[in-house]
């Protein structure tokens, strides 16, 4: 795909490699490059389901500068503790994100609680249901995957992190919001804090998306901004259209979340499959395993394993008293390998009987885009199975490592195929 760029500037491929560098991203966000935190998670979970302190402190990792250094922190390690905290959103409140989330996205569903959250989320939920997955696939994902794979399938080798995994989610989500590809990467650069993006790209994203909002108010199209422009909010029986500010609150959150998570999750999925090539062979013959592998990878290793909540009243959780005003770190990664719930939990095994995990978090704030993420991984994995026979790690390259604490993913995915 050719786009107008500065002829002396970086190519699109170079920009993807630069902006989607897992290692750099992990260092920038966490300050730490934990390779395998799961043995520590298991040890801590065995000691107690709830610990005082932050996950990074408990791991003895270099300190992740806390957003709220002045308040006590507690970390949750069991499935029961994490599931309870995510479901009881009035007590373990998403108001934690007021301030920092507001700065990046504007006021929106991330930080809302209870009835307000319910009413606002309902406005966008319709675009993200399982029955809408075919719209996302037919309109965006299938063509993007085809284009990405066509870019390297004749070469016999590829770096799948930047050439496949990074591309699909950002191009899907920004396309569906009416942004072009260069704008998407420019926005991404500012989300990463580059190009003067001290605000996480909030102002830049607002300017880009405002142009789309204005255009769709004039002329509706078959996209997500049009749906938001036409949405009516019911407040005590009075219905009103969403303001530009409210639309920007949704749009920036969804674009940022959609372009920065599935990228790494797809990388983790391909990594774990490449490490067990017999699964790839089995999957080529039985594609029902694709969906099961996606659910299992969400359980086994979710890319964003730590979410936070603000405790609004004194509460006892799994035997530990937590005072009002504390922050809890909900460790989804630890919860998803709780041996109370799963046999041999460290094993990646797509043949497990299906059972709810917290890979997309849980409770009322469960990932809005999870069915789009599933669709992206499904189409991409099927294309890999169809079009890259003999796929394996490139033995000449450095081994792929999964790194990070809050944002985990594979460093590089150097592969060869016949």
């Amino acid at each position, binding site marked *: 795909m050719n786009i107008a760029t500065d002829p002396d500037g970086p190519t699109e491929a170079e920009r993807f490699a630069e902006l989607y560098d897992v290692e750099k991203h992990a260092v920038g966000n966490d300050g730490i490059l934990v390779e395998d935190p799961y043995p520590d998670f298991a040890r801590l979970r065995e000691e107690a389901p709830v610990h005082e302190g932050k996950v990074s402190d408990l791991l003895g990792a270099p300190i992740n500068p806390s957003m709220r250094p002045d308040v006590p922190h507690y970390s949750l390690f069991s499935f029961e503790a994490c599931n309870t905290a995510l479901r009881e959103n009035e007590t373990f409140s998403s108001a934690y994100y007021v301030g920092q989330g507001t700065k990046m996205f504007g006021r929106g569903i991330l930080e809302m609680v209870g009835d307000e959250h*319910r009413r606002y989320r309902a406005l966008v939920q319709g675009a993200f*249901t399982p029955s809408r997955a075919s719209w996302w696939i037919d309109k965006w994902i299938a063509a993007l995957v085809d284009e990405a794979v066509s870019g390297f399938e004749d070469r016999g080798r590829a770096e799948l992190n930047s050439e496949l995994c990074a591309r699909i989610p950002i191009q899907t989500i920004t396309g569906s919001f009416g942004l072009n590809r260069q704008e998407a990467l420019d926005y991404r650069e500012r989300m990463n804090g580059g190009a003067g993006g001290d605000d996480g790209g909030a102002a830049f994203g607002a300017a880009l998306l405002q142009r789309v909002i204005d255009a769709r108010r004039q002329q509706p199209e078959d996209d997500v901004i049009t749906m938001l422009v036409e949405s009516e909010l019911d407040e005590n029986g009075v219905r009103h259209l969403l303001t530009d500010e409210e639309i920007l609150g949704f749009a920036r959150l969804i674009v940022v979340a959609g372009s920065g998570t599935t990228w790494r999750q797809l990388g983790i999925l391909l990594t774990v499959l490449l490490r067990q090539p017999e699964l790839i062979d089995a999957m080529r013959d039985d594609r029902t395993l694709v969906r099961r592998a996606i659910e299992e990878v969400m359980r086994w290793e979710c890319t964003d394993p730590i979410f936070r909540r603000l405790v609004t009243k004194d509460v006892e959780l799994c035997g530990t008293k937590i005072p009002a005003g504390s922050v809890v770190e909900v460790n989804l990664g630890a919860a998803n390998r709780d041996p109370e719930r799963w046999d041999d939990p460290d094993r990646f095994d797509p043949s497990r009987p299906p059972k*709810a995990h917290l890979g997309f978090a*849980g409770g*009322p704030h469960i990932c809005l885009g999870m069915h789009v993420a599933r669709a992206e991984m499904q189409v991409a994995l099927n294309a890999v199975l169809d079009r890259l026979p003999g796929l394996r790690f490139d033995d000449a390259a450095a081994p792929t490592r999964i790194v990070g604490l809050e944002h985990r993913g594979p460093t590089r995915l150097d592969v060869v195929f016949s």
Partner: protein
Amino acid sequence: MSAGERLVPVVDRAICSGAGMCAVYAPGTFELDGEARATIIDPQGDGPDDIAAAVEACPTGALRLVPVATTQEEL
């Protein structure tokens, strides 16, 4: 549950938020309608284990399994 009964899923539409987890675990049983609320398309559209997994997975607790009599006479 006594003999002559089976468990069927029911949806509380006032609580359902349309997250769609039910349709992941039991797609033959649940579907999201035009208002993004779960509806039951076939109360036995999947195996009992998958339906139970879907009910447990509901992030807002909008699904329940209730016993119903298995024969028309008992209804």
